[in-house]
């Protein structure tokens, strides 16, 4: 957790910092199909960087190019200042943890973990020392003589992790590391991963389709779609300041309102929705030409519900509650507004309701509003 809470660690904002991994104009084509489309990326030393996106977006292809399994169709990849575009995987200072773990079934845990060290021609007693060291770090010292088929899923994952880390690579690539684990194990492993990364100071690049996972783990994340980056930023930036509807919808959920700019000031923008007959006043730093079609995105947890209308002229909607989902910690209200659009509002259960009944009921007429700083204007 320390990387994330250590707000002073932001090398990407430092103009002098040299990125550890530099990807320049990299494209990968498979026949007619373009998997990765002319992308640029900088990843800095010590980051835990996530590549996020749905299946087919190109994130795994990019990871494999970093590992050296796929040569880019064009472009260059620099690692620690060295051009490694054409360097084969066995010669890169990078190790990978595979989604399937890829443990060698005919070798013991010890032999699996020692394999990479043996390839580096490291003396035997040094190998034994480092293997023991890493296995105690992942708490698998007792399983040293077991074979993979004798281990549970979580144990195998730790062997895969140990095997990749024991060589002290400069970069560790992780392909959907938590995908195969159940929820409880996943949460636990998330924190373990962060701790290990802290301890060893290795740069992590993680590929995942799970946006919650990406947000928990990362220092920064990149959202990919159709081979291109949609947005790169810290979890907070990507969540609270998405730059497109695509990103806003992929990370968490968002309520979208379409409208046209009717007024543009130095620190805010007023957008009118003819369809709904309302105005949205949103904080925004750039000026936008009046008449431009834009979208206003508001996250469900940012909307306040009230039974009576507030005395405001903007950012307020009236609707009818059509569905309530109770999740214990929160409740999700689905509310239909005048144009039949359903708005999602997430309300924390701050007050214990009397008996079984919530304070707001089905089919109730309700008012929704939000502060102008809690919404985002999206141009695309």
């Amino acid at each position, binding site marked *: 957790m320390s990387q994330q809470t250590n707000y002073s660690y932001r090398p990407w904002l430092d103009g002098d910092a040299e990125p550890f991994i530099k990807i320049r104009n990299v494209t990968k084509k498979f026949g007619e199909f373009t998997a990765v489309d002319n992308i640029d990326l900088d990843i800095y030393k010590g980051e835990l960087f996530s590549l996020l996106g749905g299946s087919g977006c190109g994130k795994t292809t990019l990871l494999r190019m970093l590992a050296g399994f796929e040569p880019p169709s064009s472009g260059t990849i620099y690692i620690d200042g060295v051009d490694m575009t054409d360097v084969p995987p066995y010669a890169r200072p990078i190790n990978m943890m595979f989604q399937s773990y890829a443990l060698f079934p005919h070798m013991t845990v010890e032999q699996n973990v020692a394999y990479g060290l043996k*390839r580096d021609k490291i003396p035997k007693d040094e190998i034994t020392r480092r293997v023991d060291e890493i296995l105690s770090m992942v708490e698998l010292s007792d399983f040293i003589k077991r074979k993979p088929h004798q281990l549970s899923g979580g144990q195998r994952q730790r062997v895969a992790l140990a095997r990749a880390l024991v060589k002290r690579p400069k970069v560790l690539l992780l392909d959907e590391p938590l995908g195969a684990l159940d929820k409880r194990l996943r949460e636990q492993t998330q924190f373990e991963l962060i701790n290990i990364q802290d301890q060893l100071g290795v740069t992590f690049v993680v590929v995942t389709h799970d946006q919650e996972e990406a947000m928990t783990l990362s220092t920064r994340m990149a959202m990919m779609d159709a081979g291109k980056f949609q947005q790169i930023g810290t979890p907070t930036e990507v969540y609270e300041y998405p730059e497109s509807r695509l990103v806003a919808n992929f990370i968490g959920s968002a309520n979208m309102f379409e409208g046209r700019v009717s007024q543009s000031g130095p620190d805010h923008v007023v957008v009118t929705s003819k369809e709904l007959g309302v105005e949205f006043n949103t904080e925004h730093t750039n000026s936008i030409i009046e008449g431009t079609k834009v979208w206003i995105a508001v996250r469900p947890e940012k909307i306040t519900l009230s039974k009576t209308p507030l005395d405001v002229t903007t950012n307020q909607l009236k609707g009818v509650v059509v569905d309530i989902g109770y999740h214990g910690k929160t409740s999700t209200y689905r509310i239909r507004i005048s144009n039949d659009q359903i708005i999602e509002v997430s309300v924390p259960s701050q007050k214990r309701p009397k008996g079984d009944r919530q304070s707001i009921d089905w089919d109730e007429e309700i008012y929704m509003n939000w502060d102008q700083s809690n919404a985002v204007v999206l141009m695309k």
Partner: protein
Amino acid sequence: MKQRRSTFVLSMLCFGLAFLYIPMILLIIYSFNYSKLVPVWGGFSTRWYTVLFESEEMWAALGLSLRIALVNATFAMILGTLAGIALVRFGRFRGRTLFTGLITAPLVMPEVITGLSLLLLFIALSHAFGWPQRGFTTITIAHITFSMAYVAVIIQSRLSGMGTDLEDAAQDLGARPLRVMFDITLPLLAPGMVAGWLLAFTLSIDDLIIASFVSGPGSNTLPMLIYSRVKVGLRPDINALATIMIVMVSIGVLLACWLMIRQKHLLESDANTK
């Protein structure tokens, strides 16, 4: 509805299996028949086994066939494995279409064509270089040529079932491609290679036509011997030989199946628990 279909399928299965086994069972029964005439049961006797074991010709032929089969199986396994790995893991390479054609053709090629063509080759080579002499060498070379095609099929099947993850992981950890082949690919292919070896061995022991074409004077393989004897009629000592072979093959097949089931369990628990 399902019942009706099942009865048809079930009865065909029974008929089919009976069709396959009754001739062999009869072979075995009659090997113990005292009488030389097939249908006449002259009482239980093992005299034909004695006749068989006393035949010097038979032992010589068996010896030759075994030697050929052993050498053939080993080389066919190696060559077939290399071919299989190349076809599954190497993607496109120059001459791939020709190579695929050459490695698949022996599977379906009629043996008379293979036999004739190889004999003509050996004669041409013999004229030009004085080698090879027809006999053990030529039969073995011929057998290796078609056995490796069968091994390649087995290897290709196994290898394509094994994803590239393990080999990628080994490369990622610093192993160069040749080392990956020896450390990872071959050990995991081992059961397939053993199956290939056994198949090549069996094909070689059993081959009649090709051996007939390419053998030389004085080199009689076991099938050639059997053929020359049965051409003239039924012979109970051949029944005895058949019985022995059936029993040995049965033991071999049982063993192989047991081993394969065990190996499958090992790999399955690998892939499943995550």
